[in-house]
C-alpha cells in the first residue's frame, strides 16, 4: 500500500494542441455525421 500526498488540483491552462483536440472530435463525429445524413435521408421519405 502507499500513502499519496493529495492537494487541490486546479487546472492550469490546457496545453493540448487545439489541432489534436479537433482531430479527435472530427474522428469521432465523422461516422456520426454519416449516420445522421443517412438517417435523415430515410426520414425524408416520411414526407413524400
Amino acid at each position, binding site marked *: 500500500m502507499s500513502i499519496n500526498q*493529495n492537494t487541490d488540483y486546479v*487546472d*492550469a491552462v*490546457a496545453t493540448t494542441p487545439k489541432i489534436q483536440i479537433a482531430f479527435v472530435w472530427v474522428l*469521432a463525429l465523422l461516422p*456520426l455525421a454519416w*449516420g445522421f445524413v443517412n438517417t435523415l435521408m430515410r*426520414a425524408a*421519405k416520411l414526407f413524400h
Partner: protein
Amino acid sequence: MAGVSYVPESYSKAWIPILDRSRTIAKPGYSRWMVPPAALFIDLCIGHAYAFSVFNLPLTKLIGVTASAPGDWTLAEVGWIFSIAMLFLGSASAVFGRWVEEGGPRKAMVAATCCFAGGFFVSALGVWSHQLWLIYVGYGVLGGCGLGIGYISHVSTLIKWFPDHPGLATGMAICGFGGGAMIGSPLSVLLMNYFASATSVGVAQAFVALGIIYGLFMTIGAIIVRVPPDGYRPAGYVPAAAPKKLVTTEQVSVDQASKTPQFWLIWMIIFLNTTAGIGVLGQASAMAQEMIGVSAVAAAGFVGLLSVFNMSGRFGWATLSDYIGRKNTYYVFLLLGIVLYAMVPTLAATRNFVLFVLFFCICISMYGGAFSTLPAYLRDLYGTMNVGAIHGRELTAWSAAGIAGPVLVNYIRQYQIASGVPNAQAYTVTMYIMVGLLVIGLLCNFLIKPVDKRHHYKASGPASDPAAAKTNPQVAVSQ
C-alpha cells in the same frame, strides 16, 4: 480538500500495467475536451445494439438465402439475441460497476472492446456453423457484457472532469449510444450487401468486419481516455457556496446507495419511462401504419426520425438539466409524457399526421434524455465517489423495461384485435396504460428528497464502507 489518501496495493498494480488507472491520470495541461470524444468512440460502437434488428431477417434466410428454407431459424428465435443482449447489458453494468470504478476507464473500455468485438466474432462462428446458441452466447451474453461495461466505463470519469457541467458531459457521451444505431444500421446493411453472394446472405462476414471496425474504433477511445488528477477543478470553476437542495457535497458508497429509498424511486422512474419509450420504439413502424395509415416506406422514415430525436434528446435534455436541475427535468419528462401519450389516441382518430410525428419525436427525445440525465441526477444525490457503480445498478431498470415494454405493447394490441377492436384503435388502451405508468413515475419523482445523512460515507464510522475507499480513494480525503 488537501489531505492524505489511502491507495490499496491492488489499486496500483494490474496484470497489464498500461491499463491501470494510475497510468491514465492526465498530466498538467491536458485538455478535458479530449475525454468526451473518447467516450463517444465507445458509445457510438455499442449503440449498434439498437440496430441489430437489421440482421433479423437475413438470419432467418441463412440456408434458403433468398427465402427461409426448412432448417432456417424463425424470427422469434432470432429475436431472442437482442433480448439476451439487453438482459446482459443491465446485469453486467450492475455486477461490474464497482470493478469499473476501481480499475478505471481504460481497463473497462478495453474489457468492453474485447467483449463487444469478441461477441461479433463468436456470432460469426455461430452463423458459419449454423448454431444459434453460439450467437446467443456471442452477441447476447458476450456482446451484452460489452454493452454494459462500455456504457458505464466513462460515466464517473466524465462527471469528475466536468463538475461544472455534468449533464452536458454525460449528454455528449450518452448521445453517442443513440447515434450508434444511426451508424450501425446503414453500416450493417452496407457490409451485408457487399459480402452477399448467390450462396450467402453475407451475415457472417459482416459480423467479422463489424468486430474488426468496432474493435479498432473502441480501442482509440481506450487510448485517448484520461482520468483527472486527485482534487481536480477546472480553471475558473468555483463550487457553489450554497449548493442546490438536491445537490449533495457528501459521498455515498454504492452498497449504501442501494439501501436508500431514492435509489429505488429513480429505478422505478427509469423503469416506467423506459417501458413507455421502448414500447413505442419497438412498434413505431406498425403504429404509424395502423394508427395514421402511412405507407411502410414512410413508416421506416418515421423510425429513422425517432432515432434522430432519441440521439439529440440525450444531448439536449441532459444539457438543459444543468440549468433547470435534474428533478425539474424529470418532471418535464413525466408531465409532458403524460399529456402527449394521452393525446395520441385523439390524434390517431383525427389522422393528424404532423402532430402524431411531432408528439412521438418529443416522447422519444425524453426517453433518451432520461438516460443521459440519469448519471448527473445520481451524482447530485450520491456524490461522485461511486456514481459509475450506482449508475450501473440503476441500469437493471433498463433491462427490466426492455422486457416489459414490448410485451406490454404487443400483448395488449393482440388482445384488443382479438376482441374485435379495429387495428387503428388497438393502441388506445396501451397509450392510456403508458399514461398510468408515467403518473406513477411522476409520484416517484415527487418523493425524491436529499439522501439522509446516515447514509453518507465517512472515513470511519457507522456508514463507512471499506470498499468505497478502494473504488475511489481520492474522495476519502475530502471527508
